[in-house]
């Protein structure tokens, strides 16, 4: 290889976009007769915050455990930060807070962090480790044994463990399950600061509001499969129009249904609006309704929440995949 071609190859490599933080393809896992994960594929880009949602038993934790090498998949491939998941070195810059968080009760909080820094072969000065404990609100408990910690404090320690080795990818499995409302707010701030620092985050949480507030993208799992995936605007892009009407004739109902899928509960009507925005749709509809003799009490355009969308996907069992 000449020096010139070597230089060209080097430039080509540096110009390449870095590999995604997580790349999973065709993950499959069966526990005896129960299929836990069935052909799950998704990616988490560098610096992206992705929410993993789904009902209990959807396979979220199993997917995370396969990703991190804790569970052996029956099929499928995982790349973490561009390295094969089977290689332990792939986890060098990965932080993880398990759903079942427990740390050596005979160690102090500071000793637990020091242990993880040593295991990751990272060099994190003591001052930075203390800062990490302060970040999760455990600054004054650094010298106390973990055995005396409450569940919430252990979860905070778990967050510090996940963050201490300057990770490029953080995987958080139900990070607020043991926290009080104040702690939840802290975690939300923490997630936003990770986002600012371009740290990729995979977040599994039942708190849809939190997910909606911090995540760039969402992957919804149901019965071991990806039911829907996409950015929040893609998933929630659908708008609807809520109306309160009376005197609705068959012709008026037909006019409403012509605009979009119609649902009715008493005098409350909800019309799903087309995805592409058209400024004339709503005024035209209202004018036509009035012309058809309908009395219009209220017209309220709305965007559906992630929670509604999630329930919709899980109940109807079909999510249009938006990727």
């Amino acid at each position: 290889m000449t020096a010139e071609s070597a230089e060209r190859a080097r430039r080509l490599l540096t110009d390449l976009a870095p590999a995604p933080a997580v790349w999973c393809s065709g993950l499959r896992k069966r526990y005896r007769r129960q299929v836990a994960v069935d052909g799950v594929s998704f990616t988490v880009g560098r610096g992206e915050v992705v929410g993993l949602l789904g009902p209990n038993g959807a396979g979220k934790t199993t997917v995370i455990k396969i990703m991190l090498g804790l569970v052996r998949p029956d099929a499928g491939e995982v790349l973490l930060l561009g390295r094969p998941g089977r290689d332990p070195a792939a986890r060098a810059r990965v932080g993880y807070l398990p759903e079942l968080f427990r740390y050596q009760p005979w160690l102090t909080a500071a000793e637990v962090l020091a242990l993880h820094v040593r295991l990751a072969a990272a060099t994190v000065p003591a001052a930075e480790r203390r800062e990490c404990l302060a970040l999760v609100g455990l600054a004054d408990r650094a010298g106390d044994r973990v055995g005396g910690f409450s569940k919430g404090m252990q979860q905070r320690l778990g967050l510090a463990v996940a963050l201490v080795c300057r990770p490029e990818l953080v995987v958080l499995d139900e990070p607020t399950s043991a926290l009080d409302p104040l702690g939840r707010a802290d975690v939300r701030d923490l997630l936003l600061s990770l986002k600012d620092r371009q740290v990729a985050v995979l977040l599994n949480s039942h708190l849809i509001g939190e997910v909606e507030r911090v995540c760039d993208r969402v992957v919804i799992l149901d019965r071991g499969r990806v039911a829907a995936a996409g950015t929040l605007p893609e998933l929630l892009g659908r708008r609807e129009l809520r109306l309160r009407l009376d005197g609705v004739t068959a012709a008026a109902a037909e006019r409403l249904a012509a605009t979009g899928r119609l649902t009715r509960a008493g005098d409350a009507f909800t019309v799903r609006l087309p995805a592409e925005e058209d400024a004339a749709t709503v005024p035209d509809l209202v004018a036509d309704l009035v012309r058809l003799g309908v009395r219009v009490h209220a017209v309220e355009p709305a965007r559906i929440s992630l929670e509604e969308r999630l329930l919709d996907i899980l109940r109807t069992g079909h999510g249009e995949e938006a990727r």
Partner: protein
Amino acid sequence: MIARTVLIVASLTLHEAARRRVLRSLAALTVVLLALSAWGFSRLDAEFGGLTSGEAKVAGSTVLNLVMFGLSLIAALGTAFLAGPTLAGEVESGIALSIMTRPVRRAAVLAGKWLGLVMFGGGFVVIAGLAQLVIVRATVDYWPPRPVTGLVLLAVQTAALLTLGLLLSTAISPMASGIVAVGLFGATWVAGIIGLVGEALGNDSVARVGTISRMLLPTDGLWRGAMNAFQDPALLRQVGSGIEESPFLSMAPLTTTYLAWAGLWIAGVLALAAMSFHRRDL
């Protein structure tokens, strides 16, 4: 990287042993045993003041073996019940999750646990055993012919049992692995005695029970080798070859082949444990 992980986990295991209550209970049990034996040996000398020096040595070395058996039992129980929780317990409680997602190999973590436990168990046996030898020396003026060999064999016996405990803890619950390991340890000891009875009665098939059990789990074989190293050669000569062995009397030192087998056994069981742990879903 692998050696680094092994050392980190080994020191963590020692740290754990030092901070957990098991060490304190082990130390208390040992002190009680040593104190009792010191009292017993001093009474031996006082009550049987008429013993010749030879007789005193014979009595001393026999009782020494009894006390050493007690010590090895404490070490076996202690390490077996430490080996279970350290692996299976961590998997059950979730402590293993955050450790295993660091850039470490499971086999390296297992090897580190093993090394830490061997250092702890072996260290205990050597220190407590040495204290016992000093007590015997001070009370009945008896010093075994090969104290180092004896203590090392006791340490290897502890290592064999805790390796088995570690293998069991990769597959079954923490408490069960401790109980099964100690149960097997006791069973081999009893099988060894049955084998001796078979030898005494000239019944080959019964005698084979002891030989086979000593191959399957080398703890009893190693214990007999340690006993032999602690015994006064005069005692062996006195007993002669007529009565053969007893549970606390061993006529012959261990063969090199048996020692090699014990080493191979430990390595094999450790490798099996690593394989079983590698395949396990956490």
